[in-house]
Every structure is written in structure tokens, then in C-alpha cells.
């Protein structure tokens, strides 16, 4: 016979903790109707972090200076940590027995949901930093809004990640300014990097049915609503970097968020997923 809860328990603090845990229960995670969209949206967040993190990790041991090498690897580590959290929650929502590792290592390119911006080759250090900055500015704005998500699980991941992304944005802003407002050569290269990546930034603000479903539930903001904060950060930093802010309008490279990628993602995955493809289930 199950015992009744002990009404005379004196440990008030413990009871309070338990109550807080109960509140932590997230109704969105079990919402069957929402499942496909919520899963896809979580993969978008997780894949952005994973692919951005992987590209940065490619610099490990090859950075232009020891401090930069360490900073790039640390930033990559943070992002891969975020990917674990987002994809872990995605797997829980999907409820098909997969986990974060399976999603990261055993999906093919067309199942990845990152924006195309992040899968482009790392280029030189100026290109890497420009791309990271354009993403960090968006990432910071997105996570700030997600801390108010109606999904406690989403909000807690965002709150954790935001603290780290604050440091990412600080560093990439500083370096974009330093290089943009640096030598003639570094200025020229940063200008070229900006021109290269700019047409890919539009995808960060697009929305489709997946977004509409999570927006309707109050889980995530409308990506378009992040634009003002992004414009402000990007405009301010580029001006200080003596770089010209490109025209907002123009061609937008898009499709990554629904699985249409550039040829670069396949090569990235071939390297990143090699071990699990060659030795399925390998662990240590």
C-alpha cells in the first residue's frame, strides 16, 4: 500500500525545493501537437551552436597567437556545450530514444537545421572573427529574449548560455574593431569578410511555420524582432571598426534552417562525424 505524504515533515527548506522542482515541470515538452515544430526549433538552436563551435574548434593548435588559440578553443567549447543542452532537450521532446550525441553524429546534412552562415569554411582569422561577431550579436539578442520563454527548460538553457555568450560577443567585437581599425591590410580583409558574410545574415531573421508554432506558444520570439538589437550592435561595432555597414536589402542566401545547405556542410560533417560513422556506438 502506498504511504501517504508525511504531513508532519519539518524540513521546510526541502519542501520548498521540491515545490520549486514541481514548478519546473515544462508542459511544452510533453505537448504532442507541438512536438514536430518544437523539435525542429530546438535542432535549429542546437545545430547553430554545434556548427559554429565546430568551425571555431578547427583553429585549435593553429591560432595566430597563443592567447587567440586558447580563446577560440574556449569559445568553441562553450558552443558545443550549448549544443549538448539544446540537442539533449530536442531528443527528450522527440522521445524516440535518441540523445544529443545521436543527433549530432548520426544525422545527415539534410537533417541539420543550422543557418548557412555558420557552415561556410572558417577562412582566415579575420573572416572567422567577422562571422563569429555577426553570429554572436544575433545569439546574444536571441538568448536574452529566450530567458523569458514560457518554457522553463528553454529559459534555463538560455540563461546559462547567455552568460558565456556575453564574453563571446565582447571578444569578437573588440577584435573586429581592432582589425577593422587596424592596418591597411587588416582593414581591407575585414571589409572583404563583411561583404562575404553579409548576404548570409538575412537567414537569421527569417521565420516559417516552425517559428510561428513556437512563437504562438510563447517559447521563442519572432526572429524579425531581434533585428533592431542586432542592427544596433552590428552598426555600432562596424562604425568603430571604420567599416561601412552594408545596405540591409539585397540577396539573401537561405535554406539551412529547413535542411537546404551549401556543399560545405557535407565536408564538415564528414570530419565531425567520422568516428561514429566508422565505429557506430564507440565510446570511451
Amino acid at each position: 500500500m502506498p504511504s501517504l505524504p508525511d504531513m508532519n515533515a519539518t524540513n521546510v527548506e526541502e519542501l520548498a525545493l521540491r515545490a520549486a522542482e514541481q514548478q519546473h515541470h515544462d508542459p511544452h515538452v510533453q505537448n504532442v501537437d507541438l512536438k514536430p515544430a518544437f523539435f525542429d526549433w530546438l535542432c535549429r538552436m542546437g545545430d547553430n551552436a554545434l556548427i559554429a563551435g565546430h568551425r571555431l574548434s578547427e583553429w585549435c593548435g593553429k591560432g595566430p597567437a597563443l592567447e587567440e588559440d586558447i580563446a577560440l578553443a574556449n569559445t568553441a567549447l562553450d558552443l558545443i556545450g550549448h549544443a549538448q543542452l539544446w540537442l539533449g532537450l530536442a531528443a527528450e521532446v522527440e522521445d524516440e530514444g535518441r540523445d544529443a550525441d545521436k543527433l549530432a553524429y548520426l544525422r545527415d546534412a539534410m537533417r541539420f537545421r543550422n543557418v548557412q552562415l555558420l557552415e561556410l569554411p572558417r577562412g582566415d582569422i579575420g573572416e572567422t572573427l567577422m562571422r563569429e561577431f555577426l553570429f554572436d550579436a544575433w545569439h546574444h539578442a536571441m538568448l536574452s529574449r529566450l530567458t523569458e520563454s514560457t518554457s522553463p527548460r528553454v529559459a534555463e538553457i538560455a540563461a546559462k548560455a547567455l552568460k558565456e555568450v556575453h564574453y563571446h560577443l565582447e571578444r569578437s567585437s573588440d577584435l573586429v574593431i581592432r582589425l577593422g581599425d587596424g592596418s591597411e591590410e587588416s582593414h581591407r580583409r575585414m571589409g572583404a569578410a563583411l561583404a562575404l558574410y553579409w548576404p548570409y545574415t538575412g537567414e537569421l531573421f527569417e521565420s516559417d511555420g516552425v517559428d510561428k508554432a513556437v512563437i504562438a506558444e510563447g517559447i521563442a520570439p519572432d526572429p524579425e524582432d531581434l533585428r533592431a538589437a542586432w542592427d544596433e550592435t552590428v552598426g555600432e561595432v562596424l562604425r568603430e571598426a571604420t567599416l561601412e555597414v552594408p545596405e540591409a536589402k539585397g540577396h539573401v542566401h537561405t535554406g539551412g534552417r529547413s535542411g537546404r545547405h551549401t556543399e560545405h556542410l557535407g565536408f564538415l560533417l564528414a570530419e565531425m562525424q567520422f568516428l561514429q560513422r566508422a565505429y557506430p556506438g564507440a565510446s570511451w
Partner: protein
Amino acid sequence: MLGTLPSEAEIWDWLSEVEDPEIPVISVVDLGIVREVRWEGDTLVVAVTPTYSGCPAVAVINFAIESHLQEKGVENIRLERRLSPPWTTQWLSDEGREKLREYGIAPPIEGTGTPDQRAQRVARLEGRSSLDVACPRCGSLHTERVSQFGSTPCKAAWRCRDCLEPFDYFKCI
């Protein structure tokens, strides 16, 4: 097997003997990453929060906690990852801060975790620091930041301009 279940206070005492693998002078309790200890029947639940999301020490820390408690005779242990509220350097105990300093790591200076971004950037680009971080070796405040990112995710690289020694600063988060 223990005859009666040890009290939570006893568990906390045992946990304060578990060293952080990266900074072996402070314990996981000093670091503030053990958030809760409770019994669920005869299973001990220990809630641990990560310092940084990608911190590679998490698995090692969990293993260290589990094996130390097992050595003490606790048979059933469940480790819970707790994300909320996110870890902050404010949870470092005073004792932990002192141990860090003695070990050669400057402890975090609070209130600087989320500064006014623009003012901070101007200061950084002019080579000034808004922080007065004392050199853990000679105590001098004549120090400078080399990089916001250091040997582990939780540290920044600094240098003393008086004794010329490089040192780690445990950065605020």
C-alpha cells in the same frame, strides 16, 4: 552498507573533501557547484550545476563525487544536473576564495560580470582595465589583462607589471 542513512550534514562534510580536478586546492562545495543533497528512499540524490556549459571537467567531477561517496559507504547515488539558477562566481565560498589566492589564482571581483558594454569596450581598447585585480603572488594592483580567456573556461589570463609573473584570474560569470 551503512546501518542507517547518513545525515545530509554528514554528506555535505564528505563532499567538502572532493577536490575540483582542475583546481585541486578547492572542493566542489567551495566552488558552489553542489546545489542540493537529499535522500529519496535509500537513494542519495546530489544536484550538481556546471560552471560553464562545455566544461570538460563535469564528467570528472561527477565521477569524483560518486566514487568518494561510495567509498564512504553510500550505495545508491543519483547525480542530477541542475541548470537553474545558472552557476555564478558569487557562490564561491570565502574560504574557497582565500584558497584560490594562496594557490596563485586571483579570486573573482564581483559586480563586474555584466558591465556597461560600451564603456568597458572603450577601456579595453585603450588598454585600461576597469578591474583592480591584485597579483596573487606579490599583492600589487599594478596588473593587466592579457586575455579574457585562459587555461580553463572559468579563468582569464593576467600579468603582474611589478613582479612580472603571469597569473590566472577567476573571471566573473
